[in-house]
């Protein structure tokens, strides 16, 4: 008799939906609960970031980068200033480099906490989300202490930082890390090793390494597929070559390599690695140094272009900047890791159920601010 196919129904998941992580619309064709075709529709949050940049001076671009990946603004700042400094040929002081790494890694933890917490919400667990936000709150407090802003920092400037670290920051960060490490294990027991959670995520949404590479998926999503690729290790920028940390890769512990559980696990391990990096950076942080020392009077790069990529919590975040010698960029292009991660969704989510699609989408950890820009 074969499989009976009923009439297919078109379902729009989003743009207003609790689990699309922003204003994303998933155009889905369903046969009962099974999804036969899925197509992400983007553009609801498009703010002409790249076009705006062509009318802004190089310093003025930085607040705009904040608003792209608003979950990890520090990392966006970081990528841009690293690219600009290479274009200008500026050497920043040691202390600035260390503070930047500290901020970037703190923001990586905060970003992964949001990713894992909301992933818990996606699969129906409410409590881990609030626990993780409790810890994220303390990171945001640290940022607020430093630069006065909680989400959109405009902290890293071309050639330096907007503010030096405030008094008591290092101690407060140590206190946070001491509390955070045991908490991390508690969250893993609560969610990651929960039998129902494993049932929901293991063997679901498998992203094979070759597909991941051919789609240009990067970051924890790629590492979840078992490919060890991290720009902090493989193409070190700033002071990452001096720090000692591991690159966790998915091994298919609970199912197949590259399933949702592996992606979750990679993010969880990365938080522990970030804690390791933070401890080293805080220990080696030079006591002296003026964070405004290397700030150029006028940011006006010579004619030329640069393509510089850095490792944001979501993967390869790259800026392509073309300068024609004027005070504004001729062209600025941002390579968004979340965009490539979303593009692989229709490849790996077809044939699964509606609940699985929500779980797969959550495991890719997309931020619409960065996809639409």
């Amino acid at each position, binding site marked *: 008799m074969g499989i009976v196919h009923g009439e297919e*129904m078109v*379902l729009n998941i989003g743009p207003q*939906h*609790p*689990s699309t992580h922003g204003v994303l619309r998933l155009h889905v064709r369903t046969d009962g*609960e099974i999804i036969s075709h899925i197509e992400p529709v983007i553009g609801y949050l498009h703010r002409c970031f790249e076009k705006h940049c062509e009318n802004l001076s190089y310093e003025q671009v930085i607040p705009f980068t904040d608003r792209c990946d608003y979950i990890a603004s520090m990392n966006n700042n970081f990528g841009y200033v690293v690219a600009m400094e290479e274009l200008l040929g500026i050497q920043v002081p040691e202390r600035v480099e260390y503070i930047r790494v500290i901020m970037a890694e703190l923001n990586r933890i905060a970003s992964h906490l949001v990713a894992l917490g909301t992933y*818990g*919400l*996606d*699969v*129906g*667990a*409410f*409590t881990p989300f*609030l*626990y993780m936000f*409790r810890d994220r709150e303390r990171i945001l407090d640290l940022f607020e202490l430093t630069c006065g802003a909680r989400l959109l920092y405009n902290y890293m400037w071309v050639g330096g930082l907007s503010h030096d670290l405030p008094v008591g920051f290092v101690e407060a960060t140590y206190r946070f890390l001491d509390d955070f490490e045991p908490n991390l294990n508690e969250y893993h027991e*609560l*969610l990651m090793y*929960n039998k*129902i*959670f494993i*049932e*929901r995520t293991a063997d679901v949404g498998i992203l094979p390494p070759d597909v991941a590479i051919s789609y240009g998926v990067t970051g924890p999503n790629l590492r979840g597929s078992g490919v060890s690729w991290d720009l902090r290790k493989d193409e070190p920028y700033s002071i990452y070559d001096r720090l000692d940390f591991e690159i966790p890769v998915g091994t298919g512990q609970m199912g197949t390599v590259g399933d949702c559980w592996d992606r979750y696990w990679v993010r969880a391990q990365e938080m522990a690695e970030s804690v390791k990096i933070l401890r080293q950076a805080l220990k080696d942080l030079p006591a002296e140094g003026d964070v405004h020392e290397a700030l150029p009077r006028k940011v006006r790069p010579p004619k030329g272009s640069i393509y510089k990529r850095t490792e944001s919590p979501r993967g390869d975040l790259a800026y392509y900047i073309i300068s024609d010698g004027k005070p504004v960029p001729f062209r600025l292009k941002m390579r968004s890791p979340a965009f490539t991660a979303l593009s692989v969704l229709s490849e790996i989510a077809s044939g699964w*159920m*509606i*609940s*699985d699609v*929500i779980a797969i989408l959550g495991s890719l950890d997309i931020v619409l601010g960065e996809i639409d820009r």
Partner: protein
Amino acid sequence: MTVDGLIRWLSGLSGTGEQAWMLLLAALITGIPLFLVLATNAIVAVYVERKVSAFMQDRVGPMGQGAGLHAGKWGLLQTVADALKLLLKEDIIPSAADKKLFIAAPFIIFLAPFLAFSAVPFNQTLEMVDLNIGIFYILAMGSFGVIGLILAGWASDNKWSLYGAMRSAAQIVSYEIPAGLSIISVIMLTGTLSMQGIIEAQTGTRWGFLPNWMVFNNPFSLLAFVVYFISSVAEVNRTPFDIPEAESELVAGFHTEYSGMRWALFFLSEYANMLIVTAVAAIVFLGGWTSPIPGWFSTAGWGLFWFLFKVGFLILVMMWFRWTFPRLRVDQLMNVCWKVLLPLAMLNIFGVGLWALVVG
């Protein structure tokens, strides 16, 4: 205080024998307090749920902040304020909805636990009717609510509602089977379907110190309790089995299009259903109004206390589940029911039969 007793009392007063109006009056006298119990239950349960979830999540939950329009001490008035807000909200019926069915659905859903509750004994005497098929009646009324869910999902003319309705229909109908079968294994021991009869079979002691409850009767009846409790969590659509209204997938499931008081009726019936399934668990497996210390605290007043205590405890366990576990997927849910719970329930019937033959 049963309907029968009231009718006898009324006919004694009037001296004209039993008449139809007496039945109506007696039903009203007993029915209105029952309705109030269910309504207060929802208000209290919502408050408790909020506070329990808050304490589990390192929060404080609803709190009052001094004089003025605030939620009272410890936020005690929060759910009252919520209920008032829901009453005052605009009544929206989507233009594409099937109007009659849309209006009827919440009432049908609420009617089911209300009807079921008329056969629940609160203590030795407090009960609307003691039917000789009490437990059977309650189970039947419990599954009656599914019709309302399907109506709500269908009449809303919303794809999410339809998904929610289909999921809940499949889920509730499936989970009734292991729940019913595990109750059968107890009925085999008590030999009666009457609620009071089942409780009376559980009075006395076991091995000198334990109360003679069904959970302690034999290993199979303990297993039956576990099977029943898991099935009942699924029957009332709570996490980890809350897939019909899975908020991260289906927005709100079958009640997506409902708002205001109609939506409140869904909420009311959810908590009323919780009360029903836990009341059945307390009566059938935990001895209903009997005291946990045999021979002590066994007056009618204590009976009411013990019954409410057991029900409250089981509801608390359900809340504990909800705020701890992730949600299962729809096919995994069916697997748990048909491949795990149903064979276990069957085994229980066999085991209890063997136990009754060999030991008891």
